[in-house]
């Protein structure tokens, strides 16, 4: 017998077959046309079980998105906090983001592209992550020679460049190439805060060995 309503969330949700089933169904069918029945078939779950964990399609998709976001923010945030100085901590977070993307391509597609057709709540949750990332970039004001001269938009423009690059890569199905992408995006993020010369130095900083090896393969 199934007990009272028991929301499935966080790491437990990501480990459950329903999370992958939701993402795969939305990938194949599009958000608007994907149905709860299709989620259930892929996850080999009964309607009763689904209803036991979720209130409906939108809520289930939002819960998967949130679990994915929490996992990502925890990892990238840890990488950022492990390094004391800006922009070294930002670079560490950028490469950790790349690792996360390489390890979770379907979930990344879902977060960047799949939820674009979802309801406002999912998009708002997605935008919250971008604001969080903008905060990591805008910490550059703390080390900038003249913080008042930096446009308020600097961090959001840098985040936008990253988001759009990721979206286009995800949609094209091309492999993510961190060695190419991160230095240029770091250049764009650092330039408004520390100027052209320091930003250019980002273009020649070698990527972490594990990612360089991965890209060579």
């Amino acid at each position, binding site marked *: 017998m199934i007990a009272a309503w028991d929301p499935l969330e966080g790491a437990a949700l990501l480990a459950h077959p329903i999370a992958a089933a939701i993402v795969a169904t939305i990938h194949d069918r*599009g*958000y*608007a046309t994907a149905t709860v029945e299709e989620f259930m078939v892929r996850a080999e779950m009964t309607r009763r079980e689904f209803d036991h964990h979720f209130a409906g399609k939108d809520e289930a998709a939002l819960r998967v998105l949130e679990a994915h976001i929490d996992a990502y923010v925890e990892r990238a945030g840890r990488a950022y906090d492990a390094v004391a100085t800006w922009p070294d901590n930002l670079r560490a977070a950028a490469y950790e983001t790349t690792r996360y993307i390489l390890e979770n391509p379907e979930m990344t597609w879902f977060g960047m592209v799949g939820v*674009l*057709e*979802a*309801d*406002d709540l999912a*998009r708002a949750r997605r*935008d919250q992550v*971008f604001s969080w990332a903008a905060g990591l970039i805008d910490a550059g004001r703390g080390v900038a020679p003249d913080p008042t001269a930096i*446009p*308020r*938009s*600097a961090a*959001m*423009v*840098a*985040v*936008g*460049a990253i*988001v*759009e*690059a990721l979206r*286009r890569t995800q*949609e094209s199905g091309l492999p993510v190439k961190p060695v190419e992408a991160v*230095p*240029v*995006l770091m*250049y*764009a993020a650092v*330039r*408004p805060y520390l100027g*052209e010369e320091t930003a*250019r130095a980002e*273009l020649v900083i070698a990527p972490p060995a594990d990612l360089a090896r991965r890209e060579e393969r």
Partner: protein
Amino acid sequence: MVELPEHLRGEPLGQERVSREVLADHQRERVLASAIPVFAKRGYQATTVDDLLASGKVGVGNFYSLFEGKEACFLAALDRVVADAMAKIEAAGTEQEGWDARTYRGLTALLRFLCQEPLSARLFLVEAQSGGPVAMSRYDSVLDSAVVWLSTGRGAHSDAAELPPSFERAAVWGLAFYLQQCLLEARRHDPAKLLAETAPLLLEPIVGTSRLSRLTRELPAASD
């Protein structure tokens, strides 16, 4: 009595026959004009054909004679918004002015458009992303054109030749995203302030600090 020239002679005033094509064009324009705020306010996914019928004051049969369906109506609205914005951007500068001033004026016109017609801007910058793959590819190609335009500035500025090859993409993509966020804030924005926020990030790496300062002095963007 003096006769009217041939081309002015016709049916008595008020009794001219209006062709079906003219009527259909008129109706199509009216439905499109009313569809833009509906899509922008409700969002592409939440908008129904019934919403479009109500806003355009048109019957189901007429609507489907003008558009294949909701997506076709959205794409036509999107094309119209892009055409309007492009016309304003292109009219803002002249070829004689050179790349720097034209681009600065074009950016000013774009930001003015965004502030004066936020619903149209929202249709393109926000809703195109949820309007399916065709809408997304149109959104992408507008941004790609801006990237191409920005890249032509390198030729006129020797320092810009040293910029990373993907600088223009990062700048245009970043700007589009930033403007999306501004529109989602749902508050009034001032074009002069937006210009001060974005020109240093978009143009300064290409034209240099002193040239941008001169453009800012010589071509001030009036606030709304």
